[in-house]
């Protein structure tokens, strides 16, 4: 009996301590995993930066199957974590359904838009960043053929593809862009073998620069590109270091900034968490291309100059990059 009481007591203490630490933010990583060297890892970097700077701690869950999606979100909301950040577009419907049930919790979605009063939605202008790396690809290509490997065939990835094609065509209107998607299920985010085969297939069709927007699958893409002696382009995180000299650049998407900002805003204690849509584009430095010591020899000054010029023109509105997600159509490809 007494041991039972002690157990209950202990449980009560744990429950209380959870309530005290209620300001802890939380993040849910999507399938593909925290260390996918890509999207989720960028989110993780942002969370870690927050933890390092503030000395705070945060909760995290890594999804391992589609079935955990709703359960994980509810568990985080019920544990008192605030704000709860979810990384990945696949959270849209679940978030739309779950967030009204926890009106006191602030939620953040990345890469999708959820129209609820307590949800902040971050989207990135991937088409603009992809346009810039498309230009670089076309300038680096000697064959006039470049490739694109997408992960799961969803509008978000088509948005990357569409921006990329426009960038390629802006430099070389006669260029051919070979586009492939890895698959139609979430498994397409994590299939290195298939990514590598797609890349080899594109190389055999003459492509000498291949851009991937495929999460973990992209590791296979970049590996195969390095093996075939062609150039790869990374995505989301800066992936230049994976195969120095064989990765032309990376289309970086500052998911880390989104997570960091959300954590900062959500834990500063002023009860004011701005919700609604936030778009991070070239101007906000939400997207861009990465140049570092691993690829500086691949990118000439001329290439850089013309991309920088295009960047300014996009920001000023002189160049308008078509956004696939606005009309589900990409007329240029």
């Amino acid at each position, binding site marked *: 009996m007494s041991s039972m009481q002690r157990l209950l007591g202990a449980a009560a203490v744990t429950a209380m301590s959870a309530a005290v630490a209620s300001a802890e933010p939380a993040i849910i990583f999507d399938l593909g995993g925290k*260390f*996918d*060297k890509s999207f989720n890892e960028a989110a993780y970097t942002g969370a870690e930066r927050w933890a390092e700077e503030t000395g705070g701690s945060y909760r995290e869950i890594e999804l391992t199957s589609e079935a955990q999606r709703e359960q994980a979100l509810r568990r985080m909301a019920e544990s008192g974590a605030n704000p709860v950040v979810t990384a990945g577009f696949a959270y849209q419907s679940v978030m739309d359904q779950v967030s009204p049930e926890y009106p006191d919790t602030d939620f953040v979605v990345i890469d999708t838009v959820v129209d609820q009063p307590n949800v902040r939605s971050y989207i990135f202008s991937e088409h603009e960043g992809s346009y810039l790396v498309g230009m670089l690809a076309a300038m680096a290509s000697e064959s006039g053929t470049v490739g694109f490997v997408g992960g799961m065939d969803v509008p978000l990835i088509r948005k990357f593809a569409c921006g990329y094609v426009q960038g390629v065509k802006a430099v070389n209107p006669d260029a051919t862009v070979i586009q492939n*998607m890895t698959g139609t299920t979430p498994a397409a985010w994590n299939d*290195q*073998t298939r990514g590598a*085969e797609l890349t080899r297939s594109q190389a055999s*069709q003459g492509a000498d620069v291949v851009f991937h927007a495929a999460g973990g699958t992209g590791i296979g893409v970049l*590996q195969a590109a390095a093996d075939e002696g062609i150039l790869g382009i990374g995505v989301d995180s800066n992936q230049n270091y*994976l195969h120095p000299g064989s990765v032309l650049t990376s289309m970086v998407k500052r998911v880390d900034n989104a997570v960091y900002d959300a954590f900062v805003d959500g834990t500063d204690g002023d009860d004011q968490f701005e919700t609604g849509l936030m778009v991070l584009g070239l101007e906000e430095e939400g997207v861009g291309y990465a140049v570092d010591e691993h690829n500086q020899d691949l990118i000439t000054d001329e290439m850089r100059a013309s991309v920088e010029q295009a960047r300014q023109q996009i920001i000023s509105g002189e160049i308008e990059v078509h956004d696939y997600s606005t009309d589900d159509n990409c007329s240029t490809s």
Partner: protein
Amino acid sequence: MDVAAILPLLDSTLRLATPLLLACLAGLFSERSGIFDIGLEGKMLISAFFSAATAAITGSVWLGLMAGVAGALAFSLIHGLASITFRGNQLISGVAINFLASGLTVLIAQDWFSSGGRTPALAGPARFSAIDLPFADALRDVPVLGPIYHDLVSGHTILVYVALLAVPVTWYVLFRTRYGLRLRAVGENPAAVDTAGISVTGLRYSAVLICGLLTGLAGAYLATGLNAGFGREMTAGRGYIALAALIFAKWRPWYALMATLLFGLLEAVAIRYQTVDLLGVTIPGPFMQALPYILTVVILAGFVGRAIPPRAGGAPYVKER
């Protein structure tokens, strides 16, 4: 589709068929001895992990290969212990092995490398590199045969050739040696083998260990030949496709080669031709990706005739007292 497109397609077929072929032959040995093995997937996975992990740590792909094979052998022994010694249900033991491998690989990878269930990317001597067969470059300009020899036959990793060589070896062992005769007999009628004074247990263990060796090679090929490192669930159902190919091949080695090449070709086609225009009708990509599975059902339902498994398959042997 022209000739220039066919060669890379066949090249890709060969690469994709290799792990299937090794796993299929592994299943063939095991099932011919009367031990159903649904755990091919798990054994490939554990081997893929240990080969990549060891290669990453030691920098030697050969040590990696040995570690991978050792891992698969250990899992084979678990399967053998459960289904031969303790006469457990072979299917359940196989499923358990798949789950165990799926969880264990990610767990250990996370603990050793802390990179989300992956091993670091392998480079240089930590991977199997392509072997150029002799005269490949010299013969390149010979019409027809030159490109075939240079592009298709040459330039694969050693495990591809080992897999192809394993087919005649398997055929010879099974159908031309005393051991093979006994192995086939133990899968059909273990009591008869026992009566002849030959150990059923010993034969079945040997078959299960050969199965472990071959799945070990398959897994190592995936992680250190085809790819450069281990990734979570990287076998992606290949063990099950190998099982389907085994039934399709009616438990025969040469047919197994054909069946796995067919599955490899279908996968390669699905990867290369995501949408196919056929007589003015556009076939959508998802259909192409589903094609191998649809074909499996269609072929098994009617075209191969009856596929009769070894008669004693799945049943533990209980010695009469």
